[in-house]
């Protein structure tokens, strides 16, 4: 038996070169001595080879013969135009820029390097002053294709089936999100891609051109960068005033922008922050510990004091 790489290469060459689709019997005839003798073992080996070629991205097309003595048989071939990478006509500086981008953005998969190799480049010893770690999710290529073809997707998310017109993908804060129109809720929704229950194969992609994306849609603004602004309760639209002491004032001002500073005094600054999402506000203020105090509204201030009192008394009875 020949080396499997040799057999795969020959099979690939045969299906690329053939002028008409070939049946398994014809393929075995063209590659003498390379497939097992018995029909069952031969079929199993061929299926394994076909899967291996598809796995590395070879578009093997199958047809069922319609008439004649071979009616009903499956025949195989590869369309060379679908197989070959189109020439992107990248200028040398553009190729180099893509190489640097792939070297600088680490994803944990080899897909970027593989792509650079296919484009005729290679990753060298680029000296990089800056880099990024980009989480890699197997669902992303599927969702991206659905976004670009405007296809509705169906997936399982936290135990429920969702139908979504995906408008765009956003990477923010180390997580990938897909934003779009949720059919079940009939409104715009955001989903974290790593929380999909569905495997990439389990995401059902519908017909292309199924919806229109709102012309002004921008994932960046559709999804507030500040979790404190994702409103859902009684403090919708209301801002809280928070005093931040001198030690943390400069950092908070940098984080929120000078526009949020309501006044300054010798002890620090007072900033105005959205209170619409109370848990987010609470978490942010408490993260500053004794350097921040909520001044108003009274309801938010009381909430923080009640929360702190509960923690303060939590060691009672502890030894």
């Amino acid at each position, binding site marked *: 038996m020949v080396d499997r790489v040799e057999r795969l290469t020959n099979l690939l060459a045969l299906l690329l070169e053939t002028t008409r689709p070939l049946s398994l019997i014809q393929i075995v005839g063209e590659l003498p001595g390379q497939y097992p003798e018995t029909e069952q073992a031969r079929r199993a080996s061929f299926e394994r080879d076909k899967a291996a070629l598809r796995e590395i991205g070879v*578009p093997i097309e199958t047809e069922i013969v319609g008439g004649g003595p071979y009616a009903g048989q499956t025949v195989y071939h590869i369309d060379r135009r679908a197989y070959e990478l189109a020439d992107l006509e990248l200028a040398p500086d553009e190729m180099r820029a893509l190489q640097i981008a792939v070297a*600088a953005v680490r994803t944990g998969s080899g897909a970027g390097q593989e792509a650079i190799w*296919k484009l005729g480049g290679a990753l060298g010893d680029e000296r990089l002053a800056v880099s990024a770690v980009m989480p890699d999710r197997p669902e992303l290529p599927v969702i*991206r294709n659905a976004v670009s073809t405007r296809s509705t997707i169906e997936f399982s998310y936290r135990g429920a089936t969702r139908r979504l017109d995906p408008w765009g993908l956003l990477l923010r804060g180390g997580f990938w999100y897909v934003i779009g129109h949720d059919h079940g809720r009939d409104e715009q929704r955001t989903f974290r891609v790593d929380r999909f229950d569905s495997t990439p194969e389990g995401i059902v992609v519908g017909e292309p051109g199924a919806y229109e*994306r709102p012309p002004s849609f921008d994932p960046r603004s559709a999804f507030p960068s500040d979790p404190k602004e994702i409103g859902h309760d009684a403090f919708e639209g209301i801002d809280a005033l928070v005093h931040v002491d001198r030690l943390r004032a400069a950092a908070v001002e940098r984080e929120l922008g000078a526009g949020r500073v309501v006044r300054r005094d010798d002890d620090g600054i007072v900033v105005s922050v959205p209170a619409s999402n109370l848990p987010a506000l*609470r978490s942010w203020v408490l993260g500053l510990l004794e350097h921040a105090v909520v001044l108003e509204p009274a309801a938010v201030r009381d909430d923080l004091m009640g929360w702190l009192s509960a923690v303060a008394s939590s060691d009672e009875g502890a030894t």
Partner: protein
Amino acid sequence: MSGPRNAEDRLRRLLVMLPWLMEVGEVPLADVARRYDLTEAQVQTDLELVAMCGLPPFVDEMVDVFVDEGMVYVGVPRLFTRPLRLTAPEGFTLLAAGRAAMELPGADPAGPLGRGLDKLAAALGERGLEEGADDTAGVVIDLARPAMTDELAEAATVGRELSISYYTPARDEFTDRVVVPRHVFVESGNWYVLADDGRSGERRTFRIDRVESARPTGGVVGVDDPVVVPDRFFVDAEVPRAVLRLAPAARWVVEQYPVDEVAELSDGWIEVRLPVSSERWLAKLLIRLGPDVVVVDPAARRVAADLARRVLARYSDT
């Protein structure tokens, strides 16, 4: 260097190697090995194998390649002159990496990266977009960075020495340090600078949003060997651990911080074991979690309660 050696990976590598070899015609074996992350022996084995491939009646004539005295020679190309198209994950990763690189300090949207990405996006078929729509809207990378980032990145490119004021939450204090930035990187939404720290004499990682100020000392140390960037969040095995029981609402802790172990309890609660960089850090976490956490260790509970009382005291005098 070592290459994966199953049949699929060997063929995959051959199919990118052959078109390039046909372009260059003649190249040292060592260069091929380095370029494709294989050993010379692996390259030689696979090239000699593919040279034997062929279909009747042209057996042995499909790929004209041979290796001699450490050189690879390729003759008249017949097959595999073009690389295989990009797979969906390859196309996505290349595009997303390019767009992420555009968000890094120093990127020029009108420069070669932007032009290369436009060609790539066109080749990958950015269909379904309205006439004149911004074709980047489908995949957006937001790596918003703290104000000080660009200055630190610029210092890293030339090896400029900076005097910085750095906030350490564990001790709740600022320290002044003289550092030489070596590398700036972003991970999970946080920006870090890897720098030679004059204070400890070591290469340390600092969070950029905690750099309060930075000014050049006038010294330029220059750049040294390629920088090794920490692969994952840096966790010291020596750091003490805490065991926490978390309510469903507190599951974000697992995503935000490195944890050693997670065990499912009933009602959606989980028990986690995680490294504790400082008592104050743990106490702060417990205060933020409030009723959503049960702490197994009474000492940790006491520290959190003490700190909560201190914060509460600020409310009585403000």
